[in-house]
């Protein structure tokens, strides 16, 4: 592992199941940070609760494992108080979209510079396979034994509507693209959201006959297409990958510096 300098090796092998996509996200994240060449002293990772949240224990950054859904709120306090820090907030789909949905849209609205990575495995893994807000209609879960009648959010649409100034989606199959997007998201001067389709063979795959980890990765290859690609035009049902939003708007911490100047009559 080339980016070994960025992990806490003593906790490996990690606690995720064989084939879990979250490990691929971690893998890509480390490469992205290494490629940016930034000092790890300036990185803070704030996570919530769930399988995804365990990622913060493995990185050799300042790390905070917080409450279910609340990671962005903790992160907002950190960022506003020390804007020079790079704040990365990995979240699960339940974490980000259910219990943390409100914090998610408001962080996007504020356009505070941080990187939200939604590790979407479409299931509550740690509690044993209950359906999540991103499971989607018709999926099976331990709390949807007859098939899910809840419709899923579209994370990209939600983040875009809420005002995120960088919104992208990729999958763990597209590992190079993943590292590239994470790097771009970290470098973006505003609130960035990256949705990563991340396989959970143990809880989602098994219940939904999606196969093992390689098969689930294959489905990301066949089931997704780049924005505006020929593949997408030929098959409109494919899930789009790429950067959907990338714009610059006044960033919250810098705006607050303006408030301070105004309050001081400067």
């Amino acid at each position, binding site marked *: 592992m080339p980016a070994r300098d960025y992990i806490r090796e003593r906790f490996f092998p990690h606690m995720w199941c064989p084939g879990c996509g979250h490990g691929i996200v971690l893998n890509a994240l480390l490469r992205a940070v290494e490629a940016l060449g930034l000092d790890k002293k300036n990185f803070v990772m704030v996570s919530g609760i769930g399988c995804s949240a365990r990622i913060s224990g493995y990185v050799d950054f300042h790390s*905070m494992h917080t409450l279910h859904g609340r990671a962005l709120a903790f992160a907002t306090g*950190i960022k506003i108080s020390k804007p020079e820090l790079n704040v990365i907030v990995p979240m699960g789909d339940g974490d980000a979209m259910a219990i943390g949905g409100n914090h998610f849209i408001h962080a996007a609205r504020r356009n505070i510079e941080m990187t939200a990575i939604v590790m979407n495995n479409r299931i509550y893994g740690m509690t044993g396979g209950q359906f999540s807000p991103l499971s989607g209609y018709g999926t099976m879960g331990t709390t949807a034994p007859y098939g899910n009648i809840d419709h899923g959010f579209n994370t990209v649409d939600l983040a875009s509507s809420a005002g995120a100034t960088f919104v992208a989606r990729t999958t763990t199959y597209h590992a190079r693209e993943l590292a590239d997007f994470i790097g771009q998201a970290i470098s973006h001067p505003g609130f960035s959201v990256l949705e990563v389709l991340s396989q959970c063979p143990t809880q989602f795959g098994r219940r939904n006959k999606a196969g093992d980890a390689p098969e689930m990765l294959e489905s990301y290859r066949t089931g997704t297409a780049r924005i505006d690609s020929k593949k997408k035009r030929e098959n409109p049902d494919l899930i789009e990958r790429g950067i959907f939003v990338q714009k610059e708007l006044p960033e919250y911490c810098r705006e607050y510096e303006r408030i301070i100047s105004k309050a*001081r009559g400067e």
Partner: protein
Amino acid sequence: MSDAVKFIQGNVVCAEAAVYAGVGMFAGYPITPSTEIAEHMSVRLPQVGGKFLQMEDEISSLCAVIGASLTGHKTMTATSGPGFSLMQEALGYAVMTEIPCVIVDVMRGGPSTGLPTHVGQGDVMQARYGTHGDHAIIAVTASNHADIFRMTVEAFNFAETYRTPVILLLDEVIGHLREKIRIPEPGEIPLVGRLRTAVEHGVDYHPYLPREDGRLPMSDFGDVHRYNVTGLYHDMWGFPTEKPEVVYGLIRHLVDKIDHNSEKMTRFRKYHTKDAETLFISYGAAARSALHLVENRRKRGERIGLLELNTLWPFPADIVREACRDMNFVLVVEMNMGQITREVKLAVEDPRKVYLANRVDGELITPMDIQNIVRLIQGRGV
């Protein structure tokens, strides 16, 4: 200094005291009757280079406050009952992760939405036991502007000294009351700053290893030491553990660091207690009525005294027991169904001598209300 004398609301006093204490960040959500604290903070904090955040709810407010504290700032939020309910989750997190912060709860009538614009003191037990799991907590209160100022500063001092969240319980009457206050000069009230580790870069730093005196030096996020913070039971580096001996050591530490130092955080005032035969025990707005009655009856030669509690948690049981020892009877004056009365009964030698004078209809308990109860106890009828 004449310009240091102001005629302002209790909530504004609290906000000014926080600035005096060196608050660097405030996050909150509007809620009656605490909103003026947030409003005043939004004016004052940027003036002193601090940060004010209006968050999307009370949950995120306290979370943001905890996060900001980790970067090395003194931090505060303010709310009222319903918001305080929402903060219980993050309060427990701050207890577990030992992150200093101050939470102001300006109490109103409850439960639920209750009486938003009326006074109550029903959150005393919520402050103590509101978050899940065993823990110790510090909660302080005040009944007048000088004390609001002093106890706000003390709340920050306790938070830093014991690396813990501290709750400041005000109430609607005190929060909205306008009276004169002389703002203390800088240095007049001692301030406790953040205790930072002396461990140098490259040397193993243990964020959760108490020193011999029980204190835990911190390292700011963004500084040279990279460590982990988690609400799970954790080892001295902050990493999760399920080892029974480590788990037990941590819960013991969390409780002992407060319980074993309770005397150091006990604040109270005694009025006319030396020769008293009857004792009132009260706090917050209720203590103003109790004091008024005590001073009136003293003029008539009645030997009544008042013990006003500024520290409610950890409960100053020894002080209360001693003060109640030779009394004919003890009357606890509070605006709830007897939350501190129960503690007083547990503390004294003869709980049968302890009575409650309360009002829970959203109105401030009056000296007459208290006098009526006194007459009933004395068998004199109302």
